[in-house]
Every structure is written in C-alpha cells, then in structure tokens.
C-alpha cells in the first residue's frame, strides 16, 4: 500500500472535480482525501488529492491515471509531490466530551499539540488542530479517551519546499 499526494491545478469551472474524481474510481483507486479551493488566480482551482493504491502494480496504475488526468481539458497541471520534500497540512475540528472535571487534562493535550479550543459548552468543546498526518492522528488517538463526538477534516493541502512552484 503506497500513499500518494497529487496536486492538480484545474480550471475553476463547474463539474471539474467530478471529472477528476471519476477517473480514480474507474481505475480502482480509493481517494483518502480531497481538498479543492480557488487559488490566487480566480479562474484556477487547486486540488490536493491523497490516494492509496491497494492493487498490485499500483505505481503503474498511478502513472496511467496521471496521464489520463492530464488528458482532461480542464486540468492545467498535475504533479505527484509524494517524493518531494514538502509541507503538508490539514485542519481538523474535533468535538469532544468535556465534563468540567476532565477539562484540565484536555487543555494539557491541546497545549502539547499547539491546538486551539474554539468553542466550549457545558458538556463539550471543539478543538481546532492543524498539522501533518502524524500529528493529527496522534492528537485524535489522545482525544479518543475522552470521547469524540464529531470530526471534520479539510483533507490535506501541500506545497513543495523552496522556491520551486507548480
């Protein structure tokens, strides 16, 4: 099982995401996360797609899919940045059970992970955490003990380090 992070620049037009994701399903790839948002140029959107290939020959499949993606008229550029040294971030909102007597414990975890408490209620709180995959999963494991009520994740965004751009 190999994870890949693809960044795709596309025309900011209706239906483009469907064209892109449709290709993955057709070739037996599961999309772990997909993030889509406009860039500094209003007519260009950027997708960050994380996929794992479970099948044998996954690398070759991925090469094929990258080529197929490139053929889509609305796809401007696609890069597999897995092998690059890059910054990867995801933002997660977690609603956890937070009875008054356990709040200090939660606060400590929040501090260690440099997360933030963004909402507080009598029985629960919402924590916002940003980070790479390892940090997010560590944080979620810690919070699981308190009882997670709901999780909302943005999916990963990524950027290659240094001056190089897509």
């Amino acid at each position, binding site marked *: 099982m190999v994870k890949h992070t693809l960044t795709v620049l*596309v025309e900011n037009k209706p*239906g483009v995401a469907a064209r892109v994701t449709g290709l993955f399903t*057709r070739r037996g790839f599961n999309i772990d996360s997909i993030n889509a948002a406009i860039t500094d140029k209003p007519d260009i959107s950027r997708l960050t797609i994380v996929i794992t290939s479970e099948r044998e020959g996954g690398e070759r499949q991925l090469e094929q899919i990258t080529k197929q993606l*490139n053929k889509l*008229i*609305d796809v401007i550029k696609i890069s597999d940045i897995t092998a690059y040294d890059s910054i990867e971030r995801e933002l997660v909102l977690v609603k956890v059970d937070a009875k008054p007597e356990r709040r200090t414990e939660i606060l400590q975890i929040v501090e260690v992970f440099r997360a933030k408490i963004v909402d507080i209620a009598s029985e629960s709180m919402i924590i916002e955490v940003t980070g790479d995959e390892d940090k997010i999963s560590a944080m979620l494991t810690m919070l699981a003990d308190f009882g997670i009520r709901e999780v909302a994740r943005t999916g990963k965004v990524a950027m290659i380090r240094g001056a190089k751009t897509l």
Partner: protein
Amino acid sequence: MTGAEAVLKGLETEGVEVVFGYPGGAVLPLYDVLYTSKIRHILVRHEQGAAHAADGYARVTGRVGVCIATSGPGATNLVTGIANAYMDSIPVVAITGQVPTTSIGNDAFQEVNITGITLPITKHSYLVKRAEEIPHVIREAFYIASTGRKGPVLIDLPKDVQVEEFEVDERAFTRAVRLRGYKPTIKGHALQIKKAAALIQASKRPVIYAGGGVIASDASPELRELAEMIGAPVTTTLMGIGAFPKDHFLSLGMLGMHGTRYANYAICEADLIIAVGVRFDDRVATDPSTFARNAKIIHIDIDPAEIGKIIRPDVPIVGDAKNVLRALIERLKGVDLDFSDWLEVIESWKERYPLRYNPKDGLKPQFIIEKINELAPDAIIVTEVGQNQMWAALYFNYKEPRTLITSGGLGTMGFGLPAAIGAKVGAPERTVIDIAGDGSFLMKCQELATAVENHIPIKVMILNNQYLGMVRQWQELFYEGRYSHTDLASRTDFVKLAEAFGACGMRVERIEDVAPAIRKALEIDEVVVIDFRIDREENVYPMVKAGSPLDEIIEDEEGVVEDSGDLCGMEKEGVVEVVD
C-alpha cells in the same frame, strides 16, 4: 441573435454541411432555425443511428461528424454511438437539448444529466448556461474533437439558452482556440527519433505494426514510404486496415485474434516492433506477457497515456504519426538496410499458411466477400460486428485508408447500417457496402427508412447464418457446443422487410447467384438488401484464443498444417492446435 441561431452560425463557420438528428421538445428552437438553414439535416429513425451516421461520415471524410438529439431519451439513445466514437477516437460533435436551466436538477420532464452520463465516454463536454458562450463553445468543441487524439465532444444546450437573445460578437466564431490545459504534442522528440532510428538500424527482423492512428493522422503515405524505404513488413490492426495496401508485397494483413498466421508469426519472431498509432489492445496483444517476446519496441502515439499502458516500449515517441514518421524517414534516408533474409522467411510463411477456407458445404461467406471485392474493388466497406466483420476484414482487398469503416473498440452491433448511411453521405460518388450479420442488421434496420427516404443508395449484404455467429463460434469452441440463445433461425423475411421500407430486397442461396445479385445491386441506384443464406456453422479462422500467445493458433481441420514446425530456423514454443 438567439442561442439557436448562434449554434447554426457556429456550425456553418466550422464548415458543417450535414447533420444527423432527431427532434424533440428540448431542441425545438434549434430545429426551427434548421428549417431554413443551408445545412442539410438527415432525419434518422433512432438517435443511435444519428451518432453512428455522424461517426461513419467522420471516418470516411476525415472531418467532424455532427449529430443532434433532444433531451432525456433522445440524449440517452446517443450514448452507445458516443461510446463507439470514443473507443475508436473518431471526431464527433453531439448536440443535445436540455431542460431549461431553471429546471435542471428538478427531475423535470425528459431531464437526464447527459454530461454526467457521458463523462467517461467523451473527450470533453459542455453544459451551456448562457447563449453568449455558444460561439466559443462550438469553436472549442470542434477544435477538441478534431485535434490530438480525436474523439467525441458533447454540447448540452438547455432550451432557454436556445431562445435567449444576446449581443453577438461575430469574431467569437472564428477566434483562435486557446486552452491552457490542452496542448497535444505533435512533433516527436528529436532524441527519441534518433534512438528509434538506431534501433531500426540495429535490427534484423523488424515489423511495422500500424493502427487507426495512422489513418486518423492521414499518415498512410508516410507509412508506405518508410516501409518501402527500409524494406520492412507491415501488419495492421482492424482499425488500421487500409493504412497500407493489403496487396503490397510488404503487407502482412491484419494481426491479432483473427489475424493472418504470417502476421502473428512475424510479431512473435520479430526483433523489433515499430508500433504506430496503436494501443496494444487485447484483440491484438492477446497475451501481453508474450506479445513480441523477442522484440524491442518503438511506440509512436499522439496520446501519452497509451504509451506504457499495456506494454513498456524501449523507445516511446509521443507525437502525431505523420510528423514522427516523416522525421524517421528523414533520419533514415540513405542508410543502407537489408532485411531480405527476414522477408524471405515471411514469404515462406505466406506461401505455407495463406488465408484459406473450405469451399465445400454450401455458400461460403468468404467467397461472397471475394466476389464483392471482384465486382466492387473500389467500394467503401462498412461492417457490422461478429463473424461478418472478421470475414470482411480478412477477405476484401483494401487499398487505401478510410475504405473500411468498422466498430473496432466497442464492437457495436448495429453500427454498420447507420454508419454506411453517414459514409455514403460523406462520399456520395463511392459505392458503399454494409457487410452485415443477420443479428446486427436487426439492431438498426429501421435506418433503412432513413436511407430510402433521403435517397442514400447503400448496399446491405447480409451474411445470414441465422446465428449470432461469433458468439456461437465461441460456444462451439469453448462451451462444448452448447448454443445457448444464439440460434436466430426464424421466419423473419429480410427481402420483405427491405421491400416494406421501399428498398430492393434479394435472396441468394446458391453459389451461382452470388455474382449476378451483387452486380444487380451495384447497378441499380437504390437501397439494396441482399440476404445471403450462408453455411450456418462456418467459423472465422485463424483464431487465437483470448489470453493465449499469438502463435497458438486454432484452425479447423481444413486448415493448413498440424504443426508449426521449424518456422524460420528459430526456436518456437507455440504449437499449432488443431480443432475439429
């Protein structure tokens, strides 16, 4: 100008002379403008026929074929035709009506999400939201359909957009298309061409394997020039038939599942494959792991995604076939190459294993094709799908590109008749013959009305075995002769059926009646249907089983030899199976 007027203006600007279509509620505004348009509209009898006719027209003329259907069921009826064009990379623009923008998503009457349905079978598609987009959408659609690896483009036009008035900027109809996400590579990489030339120089047993891409890029002259210059044999795929003259001394005919023995042996024994405009489809590379097992491979294709998809080439060249072949020719000019030993081996295979059939036991389909070839050597042959298609591919002597029109990738029964109509409209001066099977013919026989009413005198020649013959052949060979639901023996009378549509119908049961019937069909300026009652259980040979290496060839007992022997002094593993 209204949206509908803009569509017609756009089509005229693109040089469209004819469209194939079928009206309905959601395209009423468009049809209202068509009523007085210079563009010829051919009313088909089922929208699938419109798509296939546009496809046949495009294959024969090399231009973009256009079809029109209404929303909902009209649009879904186009789907098979669009998929067919997609699989064979044929430039088609399909225009569908759509419910008004204000109703989209409401499950309105005759609403389907046709851009969604056709997403995986179109090169690109548009759902037009405002009339002012129409001029550039039409322009882009034609550009995308007809450049790079060609293919179908769908334009979905909501009814309110068709009636919307807008201030038109006339220049938009002719403005150059600029798409930053779409820049097909035409010119081959110089270094790769150099490497390819070096491989050719180093080879002793090269084979050129040419496909539909050669025809799409009008590269037949270059293919021939290269082949003759270096003296290398040429085999074509089904889609590539016509790209190289079949009776040329360097021609190996078709390769693959029903290819000639000598073409398949040549692939197995070659030390270099020059693959041009092909995709190593499973009907050719029946077993990719043994395909061209002794050869290095040069793969030339305009679509980078085809390169390395099935087989990893030693020298990949992305580019247009015409352009790359020209560059290769220039590079190899004056180079002394001599493959005469190899050609001798091939010649001996050709002598030893010619295409042949047993002329005993009634009317043979192969004989009929040979007669058609004799009496109409310059005809454009269109086929249905099944055994009829393979016999037409194997036994007619194709001399130029765009003379065999056949559904390759999708294998669509019912393609032939409407495609023949499109072909005849595109080339009215040519004889157009649809070689049909009885099963396929019935899938789209209503288009006889289209042909008759529009005076499009095509000739339908049904090789009537009263079977879904190709499926029956597989049942005979691989399912112990259990003919599950492939027997079409019935009281259906094709002669009367032809006459009911106003066409001329004939039935031929005896060998001596074959030539006179064909002659008569060619003489009369009418739509003709001939019902040839052929030997029911004739099979298509040679045959390579799906998944088997190309030199494991099945042939019936009347076939050639029982063992492949010492084919060319080289070690051979494949054994010729004899099936009776």
